[in-house]
Each structure stands twice: as C-alpha cells, then as structure tokens.
C-alpha cells in the first residue's frame, strides 16, 4: 500500500511541473503584457516596471527564476493588485472557494446518494421516473442559468435572501451559491448511484445475504452500499474539477471573494504570477483528489486492494 502511494506521489510532481511549464510559456507567448492598460507610460518607467518584475530578462531565465522561487514556496508579487503577493491573495480567496466547493459536494453526495438508491429501489415506477427526470433537468440546466434565476426568485421577487455578496460568511449569503453549485453535482451523483445500486443488486452476494434471511435494511446498508460507492468515488475527482469551474462563475455572479475571481481578473489583466499561482493551486488540488480517489477505491473494494498490492510488490 505504501509502495503504491509512493509511486503515485512520484508521478504527481513531474505532472505538476509539466503543467507549470506549459502554462508559463503559453502565457508569455501571448501578445500584450500586464502594463498595456496603463496607457501613457513613459518608456523609462515602463522599462523600470518590467525590470521590477524581471520581465526584461530572457524568457528561459524568467522561467528559472520562477521555478527557484516556487521551490521556496514564493509565488511572487501580484502585478494587478499592487500591494499583495499572490500567496496573500490565494490565502484570502482559497478558504472561501474551498468552503463553497466542499460544502456543495457534501450536500450533493448526502442528498444524491439516497435519491439514487430510492430511485433504484423503485425501478421503473413513478418515483424512479420522477427522480430520473429531475436528475436530467439538474444535468441539463447549468449553474449559469440556475444561479441568476435563483437570485431573481429569492433575492429580487421574494426578497428573502441576499442578492449577492459574501457578508463575511453569513449563512444567508451562502444558501443561493451553494444551491446553484450543488444542483448539477447532485443530479449526476443521483444518476450514478442509481445505476451502481442496480448493478450491485443483481450480484450473487446480495442474493446470498437475502437467502440468509437478513433484514432488508441490513442488506442495503451493510452489503450493497459499499460497492455502490465505488463508481461514486471515481466520480469524485472530476467532480472537484467541476465544482471548481462552477465556482468561478458562481463567484462572479454572486460577487464572492474566492480564488476564481482572482483568476478571471488575472487572466484579463495579464497578471502572470497571479494566474500561475491559481493554476498551480487548482492543478495540485485535482491531482491530490485523483490520488485520494485511488486510495478510497482500494479501501472500498477488496479486489482492487489486492490488485494494487500485487502490482506494487512485483
């Protein structure tokens, strides 16, 4: 197990390095620079500014400087937010984005899994069809639509919830963004768990459990639930990516001070260090989630666990 973990972790760093290199050079090849917006700069001032951010040096040298700073945990200064370093901005934004994303995923799982199992238990009856239709709606209608519509109904028409803003993390401000973020994930999870549960129910070990006369709740919760979770876990990694992309738009719509907003702002103003910093944080998150998903897989399915061990020892 440890060996397996070690090999997976060893692949993680080179992957991250490739991502960093790709994003670094892609951004710099682009025409335009971070000081285009400040129109009438004197050439000397522009030179000094560029020198201050090492932008006057050859590209490869800049890359070297960036990597050596990064190795020391320094993401550099933000160009568009003059008084902040990128690390400081991420430290402000990340807790907000993480809280939103993880809470949304948790809600989606806690509601989606039971819904999927209920649908499966009533296969092809009206409850199943209702849940199926709702799930389809959840998948088809993006947060881009649900978020403004939720605001319109609850914020503007009913006036029961704030239209936008973070309100220093007051719960009223979180309800609408969380709902918009969780709905599509909830729908996917409900669908996945319905399919997985139907598959599991046909297996011989479930028949065996029933044959031993176990009560239905025990068959479902103790015997059928763990293998139902396996495909869900493999969905978890892409779900994190989905929630993160979703949160960029959600943060924009509701004006929340998360990392996604800095990313968009950074991309628009060519704030190279800021964009790089956010990409690194997100890529690391996705890679770590993939690793976690592999581990959880092993924990849930003894066959996979044995396969991994066998693979790691040979």
């Amino acid at each position, binding site marked *: 197990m440890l060996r397996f973990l070690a090999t997976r972790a060893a692949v993680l760093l080179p*992957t991250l390095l*490739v*991502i960093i290199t*790709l*994003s670094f050079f*892609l*951004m710099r*090849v*682009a*025409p335009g620079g971070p000081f285009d917006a400040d129109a009438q700069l004197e050439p000397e001032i522009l030179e000094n500014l560029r020198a201050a951010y090492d932008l006057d040096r050859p590209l490869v040298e800049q890359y070297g400087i960036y990597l050596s700073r990064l190795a020391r945990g320094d993401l550099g200064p933000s160009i568009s937010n003059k008084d902040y370093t990128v690390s400081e901005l991420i430290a402000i934004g990340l807790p907000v984005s993480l809280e939103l994303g993880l809470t949304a995923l948790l809600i989606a799982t806690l509601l989606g899994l039971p819904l999927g199992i209920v649908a499966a238990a009533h*296969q092809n009856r009206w409850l199943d069809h209702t849940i199926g239709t709702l799930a*389809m*709606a959840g*998948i*088809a*209608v*993006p947060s*881009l*639509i649900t978020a*403004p*519509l939720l*605001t*319109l109904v609850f914020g*503007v028409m009913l006036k029961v919830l704030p*239209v936008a803003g973070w309100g220093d993390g007051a719960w009223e401000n979180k309800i609408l963004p969380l709902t918009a973020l969780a709905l599509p994930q909830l729908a996917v999870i409900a669908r996945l768990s*319905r*399919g997985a549960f*139907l*598959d599991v129910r046909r297996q011989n070990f479930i028949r065996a459990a029933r044959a031993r006369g176990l009560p239905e709740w025990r068959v479902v919760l103790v015997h059928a639930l763990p293998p139902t979770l396996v495909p869900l876990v493999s969905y978890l990694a892409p779900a994190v*990516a989905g929630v*993160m*992309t979703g949160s*960029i*738009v959600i943060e*924009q*719509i509701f004006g929340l001070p998360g990392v996604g907003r800095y*990313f*968009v702002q950074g*991309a*628009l103003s*060519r704030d190279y260090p800021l*964009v790089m910093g*956010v*990409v690194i944080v*997100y*890529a690391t998150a*996705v*890679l770590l989630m*993939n690793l976690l998903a592999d581990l959880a897989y092993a924990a849930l399915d003894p066959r996979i666990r044995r396969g991994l061990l066998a693979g790691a020892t040979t």
Partner: protein
Amino acid sequence: MTPEGQALVEAAAGLRGESLWRAALGRFSANRAAMAGVLLLVAITAFAFVAPLLSPHDMEANDWERIQIAPTTEQSHWFGTDANGRDLFVRVAAGARVSLAIGLITTLVSVVIGVLYGAIAGYAGGRTDQVMMRIVDVLYALPLFFAIIILVTVFGRNIFLVFLAIGAVEWLTIARIVRGQTLAAKQTEYVEAARSLGAPASRVVLRHIVPNVVGPVIVFSTLLVPTVILVESFLSFLGLGVQEPQTSWGLLISQGTASLDSAPWLLVIPAAFLAATMFAFNFIGDGLRDALDPRDES
C-alpha cells in the same frame, strides 16, 4: 436442389437483412424522449435562421424610443428590447447561430483529433502508445476550464480561436475512448484479414478500425456539443468569449443577469433557449446510447 431447399431460397430472397445501424435507428426513433429532443433541436435551429427574416429589426439597430421594454407586439419587439434598445428576438437568434456553430464545429474538431490520435496510439501499441497516452494523462490533470481560459487569453478573444481552444482540450476523452476500442478491435479477425492481405497500417486504421469504433464516439459527441456550448457560455459570461457587437447565449445571459431586477426577460428568454438546447442534446445523447448499446437495460 430439393424442393424444400428451393422453397427456402425463395423465402430468403424475400427477406432483407437488417443492418446493425438500421436496427439502432429503429430503436432510436421508438424512443419518445430522444425524438422530442430531435424536434426541439430542429425547432431551435429553424428559429435561429428564420427569426431574422420574420422580424423587421436589425440585431444592432437601437430603438431609442423603446429602451428595455418588456416583450410586446408593439413594433414587433416580441421578446422586448435590451438596455440599448436592441431587439431581443433577433439577438437571441443571432446568439443561437453563434452558440450552435461553436458547439458543432468545436465538437467536430475534437472528434477528428481524438479519433485519429486514439486510433494511432491504440494501433501502434507498445512504447508509442505509452508515450501518447501519458501525454493525454498529463493534459487531463490540467484543469480544463483553466486551460481554455489561458488559451483564450493567449490567442486573443477571437471567436474562431474560442472554437479551437475548446476543441484543443475536449479531444482528450475521445482519444481515450477510441484507444480502448482500438485495442479491442486490433484482436479481431477482420483486422487480421486486412493485414494479411497486405493493407498498409494507415488503411487498416482508417478503413477498418475507425468505422468500427465510432459508436461510442457518436454518443460521446452528442453529449459534447452541449458541453461545448456551455463552456462557450461560461467564457462569454466571464467576458472572455464572444465580444460585442457579436453575441451568444452566454453573453446575453450575462447581460440579462446585470439587469435582473429591472428587466428579467433579458435573462429568462436566452436562459430558456440555452436550457432547451441542453435538454435536447441530453435526450438525444441518452437515446443514442440506448440505441447503439442495447445490452444496457438500466
């Protein structure tokens, strides 16, 4: 030939074999949700092209007398006007053309790249396959949406580059699917037969393998079109995609969100069109999956 044999031959002559594709088509057209999806999509496409002919307004013309008016029959502003007095009916149609075009062209780009890449990797096998798929793995770890935003920033906010940027990222899954299918197809007799007849690798891949692995790709592409439309909407919403005076559903929704309390129809109408399109493609995709893969009973 015996009389019985003769009769059998005559009976067989009256029968026509049903190809797998024909059978799939039969199953598809029996699926009511999928057919509803097709109808909806045809209607939206027709609207996109016919609406400008029906309406007397130009999408960029400002009606300063009627700014932000609600949907009305007056002056044929059937969907109302926006903050600049422009007619929403023709703008939604213009947005539909852009969004649908981006969805279809980008999907086509991804499918071509993904199918060729996956088929070559799978057919070549060995080290070539390893290297090619490792590249895909690394690109996969790059958060997709971020990659697109970086690409769009790099290449400027040109609408055709939006196509390319999204397509350049979305081919990865197709490459994976096709590679897996190719690995399986490589073991089949028809590929062996083609090879033993001396067909060059390019011919084996293009003529024998690709047509046989295309089923799952069709299903995936149908679901890719709405994904791409959505990515474009997200980009335009953030101000990184389609730029004024051109428009797309994402841009219209973004502008509608800005005037949500004073003019909700500017949000609701484009949102309804986008949602309807998403539904249509999802229903069609589901229907195709069931039709092409009848094993799956759930």
